């Protein structure tokens, strides 16, 4: 802690001006929102039919004689949701949330782009549009929320890199557990001074320093666990929860989890990432403590996968997918899906789950309800999004 205090004292004068968004001053800053919003990006294309099997649809077993998760009650069967859908057995924690009415499951959801390319579809998901933009929608949301009077940046990236979702005009913090031995505080000050006028590196270095100080203050040193545990998704989610819970902590956060691109041996390969996701949500709740009640977590992927299993016990890139809302502020306990069916004639382009709602509409509704944003602001954050009248009361008032 001594180190952090020294560093803060040394650096305060250097980066303070960079931390305030242009045109904002502390004097005019409104009180920060108490509502937390977390996005978990599942990169690679989660197979919604595997995570949330529609076991009552006879088309599932027909299309997936080797891959289908058995129905509830069978050995290794799905955990029951509403009689039509179940949850993969590795998602026991999410199933518990469903029982508490703190989880909403969406199915047959269309992504931001109809493309089956990971990279186009992920870029569109992160930009919040049908095309690539220069900023991510979570960054634009950060810019639209009342400026925080101090403490951490409004938005937090968990991990080494800054996802496109969080790139843009608003300054963003990031967090990763401490790895190797760190240099003396003054070295950072010197490096920051050299980069201060560099538009590419200057602002990010300054934001990084501020966030590290902040995280050290909130979480403290975390050397008790081995490296693998420290960098596990659950531990990252736990730390993110603690940071979000702090009174002057961030209000928005993005986490990423991979392992979903299961072209082969899907049944084996999906179990571990699903378990990680499940453990991560529970850890996030633990970290958030009482702030969990003011939190909405959106879990989203770039596209769904083919309805029929492919030739290698996996699935290829598809269209309709599953998405989840979890959190103490979620009006949950239901599966929201206008189910298109899995029969041969029901499929999109004769291969994919046909989307009947969109991630764009879901996101728009969540932001509107959670933050009370008006239509103009929503149009900035999610261009081209429209209200879906079937989606309402996703978030508790």
């Amino acid at each position, binding site marked *: 802690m001594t180190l952090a205090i020294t560093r803060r004292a040394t650096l305060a004068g250097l980066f303070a001006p960079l931390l305030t968004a242009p045109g904002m001053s502390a004097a005019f800053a409104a009180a920060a929102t108490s509502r937390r919003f977390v996005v978990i990006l599942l990169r690679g294309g989660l197979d919604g039919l595997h995570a949330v099997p529609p076991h009552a649809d006879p088309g599932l077993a027909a299309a997936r004689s080797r891959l289908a998760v058995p129905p509830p009650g069978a050995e290794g069967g799905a955990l029951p949701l509403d009689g039509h859908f179940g949850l993969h057995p590795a998602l026991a924690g999410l199933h518990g949330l469903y029982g508490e009415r703190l989880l909403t499951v969406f199915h047959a959801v269309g992504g931001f782009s109809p493309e089956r390319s990971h990279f186009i579809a992920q870029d569109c998901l992160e930009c919040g549009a049908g095309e690539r933009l220069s900023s991510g929608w979570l960054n634009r949301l950060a810019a639209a929320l009342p400026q925080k009077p101090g403490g951490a940046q409004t938005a937090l990236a968990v991990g080494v890199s800054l996802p496109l979702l969080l790139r843009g005009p608003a300054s963003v913090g990031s967090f990763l557990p401490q790895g190797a031995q760190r240099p003396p505080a003054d070295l950072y000050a010197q490096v920051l001074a050299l980069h201060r006028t560099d538009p590419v590196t200057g602002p990010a270095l300054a934001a990084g320093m501020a966030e590290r100080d902040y995280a050290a203050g909130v979480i403290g040193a975390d050397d008790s666990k081995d490296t693998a545990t420290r960098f596990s998704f659950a531990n990252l989610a736990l730390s993110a929860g603690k940071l979000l819970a702090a009174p002057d902590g961030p209000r928005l956060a993005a986490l990423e989890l991979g392992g979903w691109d299961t072209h082969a041996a899907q049944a084996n390969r999906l179990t571990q990432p699903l378990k990680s996701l499940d453990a991560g949500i529970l850890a996030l709740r633990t970290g958030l403590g009482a702030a969990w009640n003011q939190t909405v977590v959106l879990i989203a992927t770039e596209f769904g996968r083919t309805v029929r299993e492919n*030739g290698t016990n996996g699935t290829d890139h598809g269209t309709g997918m599953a998405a989840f809302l979890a959190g103490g502020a979620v009006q949950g306990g239901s599966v929201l899906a206008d189910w298109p069916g899995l029969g041969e004639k029901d499929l999109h382009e004769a291969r994919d789950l046909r989307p009947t709602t969109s991630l764009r509409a879901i996101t728009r509704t969540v932001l509107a309800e959670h933050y009370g944003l008006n239509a103009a602001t929503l149009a900035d954050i999610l261009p081209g999004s429209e209200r879906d009248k079937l989606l309402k009361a996703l978030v508790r008032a």
Partner: protein
Amino acid sequence: MQTEQFHALARFGLGRRGNEALPGDPRAWLAAQLAGADPGPDGASKAETALAAIARQQLEKTPEAIAAARALYRGETIRLLDHAVASQTPFRERLVWFWANHFTISARMPGCAPLVGAYVAEAIRPHVTGRFADMLRAVMRHPAMLIYLDNAQSIGPASQAGQVSRRGLNENLARECLELHTISPAGGYTQADVTALARLLTGWSVRVQQEPRGFLFRPRAHEPGGATVMGQRFADGEAGGLTALDFLATHPATYRHLATKLARHFVADSPPPEAVRRIESVLRDTDGDLGAASRAIIELPQAWEPAGKLRSPLDFVLASLRALSLGPDRRPDLISVMAGLGQIPFNAPLPNGWPDTASGWTGPEALLRRVDAAYALAGRAPDADPLAIAESTLGPLLGAATLDRLRGAPSRREALALLLASPEFQRR
């Protein structure tokens, strides 16, 4: 002033090695690196060797077999990093890493991890100054790529094997071939083209458990009847797939895609259109000669403008080791260092490889970790003279503000770390 020499070392190369002699004419020095064969590192393991380790791992599933396969990945990766640190043809070496990233394979798919050394040696390095069509063929037939993108198990539904087994098509390799390796989405392919190419590539497989281990065309798994890709009809058989790859390799959209990526790598994150057009026209006029395209990059006036590209973590670590003349005995574990910076070699999260623009590497924590890594590396060179190293590695590119702070640093180690973390050293 030797600004162009130092610029060439950073922009086209991997930074200066210690106090090595500066090139006389930088353009001639770069062009000379493209001539002749590139033998690569000594002792790289062959695909057969790596496949034997994979076979043992699959068959025995013992901790020893798994550790042996993992050791092969680590050993081959370190060998490639060492080779780059010591390279006297750093432009050629940069091109090797560029093309290996274009045709990404990733150890995140454990089945291809032991093959990284063989993959670079057999599919990438021999073709860096040759024809793109030859590189594409070599890559698409290499066990590492066939395993990484699942084609090894893809079976034509109407093939002999497809009719008796319940297995079938896997379109992963075909999709990434169109999207990432050749024509890109700008080429305007459809889902039908992806499926058609996947059919043409059925039977392109790998023999792992029996000798001779390596690429194997399995006629029994090959879809009969041929297929139409991008309006072009291709026959079935192994030859049909090869012809389709040649068609894609020499497609105008492929040349545009490759030219854009090369210009982004060597010129600017947003490559100037004239630079892209120039490389594109050379590729078109030479039937996809990558040596000619590389020579054209040297001659681009835009490539000689002051450095604006942020070094990737890989470039940064290689340049630091070269600047500090850190031999293998004094280095930290490079894979751990790269892990801390978010770029473990041959471990990209997805088949599009590592980012090649600053925005992919400028997360706040990511940049701070460069400072941490600079400090860790500086600690390995306790006797180094920071000012002499600053002079030898950056020459006239070293700015007055950085020099001032190096002089004022409280210790040699901090001065060295400051040098490596400075804006000048972070650029290429």
